[in-house]
């Protein structure tokens, strides 16, 4: 068991270290990614589809007008953790909600 625990811990550490440079510069790296995603006219369309498929697996989808742009940005990241969304799905859903509220 100790060996397995060590392996899991090592795997997690390796994931962080390997992705470290990208992670450390994520805010900078994300900026163009977000900008290009915002410029992508299909992002909101993909987001609408992901929103319908992922949110409804647990609860009624909320009205986009329920929350502001900033609030959706946080709430969807919470759902990224809870529902196992990919980063791209997360950004697409945020784009859809922010363009629909």
């Amino acid at each position: 068991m100790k060996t397995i625990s060590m392996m899991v811990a090592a795997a997690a550490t390796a994931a962080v270290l390997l992705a470290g440079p990208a992670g450390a510069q994520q805010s900078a790296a994300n900026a163009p990614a977000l900008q290009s995603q915002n410029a992508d006219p299909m992002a909101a369309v993909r987001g609408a589809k992901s929103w319908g498929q992922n949110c409804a697996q647990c609860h009624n989808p909320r009205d986009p007008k329920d929350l502001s742009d900033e609030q959706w940005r946080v709430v969807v990241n919470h759902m990224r953790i809870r529902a196992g969304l990919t980063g791209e799905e997360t950004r697409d859903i945020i784009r859809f909600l922010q363009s629909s509220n």
Partner: protein
Amino acid sequence: MTQHTRAMEIAVAGAFALTAASIQSASADTATDQLRAEIAGASIFGRNTVAHLAGYGDVGFASVKDGTRSFNSANFNPIFHFQYKDFLFFETEIETMTLAEGGTKVEVEYANLNYFVNDYVTVFAGKFLSPIGFFKQNLHPSWINKFASAPPGFGHDAVGAPTSDIGAGVRGGFFMGSLKANYALYVGNGPRLELNGAGDEIEMVEAEGATGNADNTMLVGGRFGVNVLPNLQLGVSAGSSKVAVEAPGGLEPTRSYEASGFDAAFQYRGFDIRAEYIGQKVGALASSVAPEEGKWTARYAQAAYRFPGTGWEPVVRWGKVESPHADQEIKQTAFGINYWLAANSVVKLGLERNQGLVGTPNDADRVLLQFAYGF
């Protein structure tokens, strides 16, 4: 007054009105800008950090057959989210419950820090809802749960499914061709064993996260889920560790602990159908004050249907808990009718038909009424 003079007067009056309106508008703009600046200045957060308050609250009424009738719940569960740029995320849910005997109970349901390493990997650490299983992690909030109570063994009763753990791990989602998968893998302090009053049997597995880890062992666990269809998710989960009894004479040698689970969820045109099984098994240890092994299982199946264009939603649920101890076992058939006031607010009326050891609460039928609001 000539027509020309009157036209001049009207023109002058109009110009005056426009000028006044312009001045007023400029004044209003300035006031708005000042107000915005004041609000921005008053915020404790800058542009990089966003804070958000979410959560849910509920009130409930229960009538127990041949027993008590009371407004049995008034709960407030605020959830705080803090996000730094787009890669750091902290979330915590504080559970505040009004107790039967009065007073208030406050618990940290979860509090964890998440680092979005890339699009597919999130590293997390802290107290988190157990990824072993699905209900506790994703469906327990009262505005999401479609019945007025948690399925037997999936609530805070500590007899069926693990509820939370404290540790660290990785989680995320990815695509396998056209199939969407999600995963969570973690290391945590794991469960503890609770002895019965006589001290010669394991009463239950206490699987709610704690910072203590007397037996010095770690649990490795996780869940893997895959959407075999966009509206059909299947999940398997497991956990393995060693646990030790804290006997009056001291800490005993460790024994095995295994948890396993299976869950399924399907949505189609107003139907929401789901089922889940979780088992926890503690191995035997001849030298222990409680030498026998023990196995606790909890399972439920639930179907709900939302009538199109209305707020009405009937729901039926079946659940069962098996335990080495007869007083912990329960079979339940439950029927309910929900009315959704909004996507995040529901009134639930339910009837539980419970079968358990005669004379115990597990054998008493209940009528439940609950009003829940998620925000």
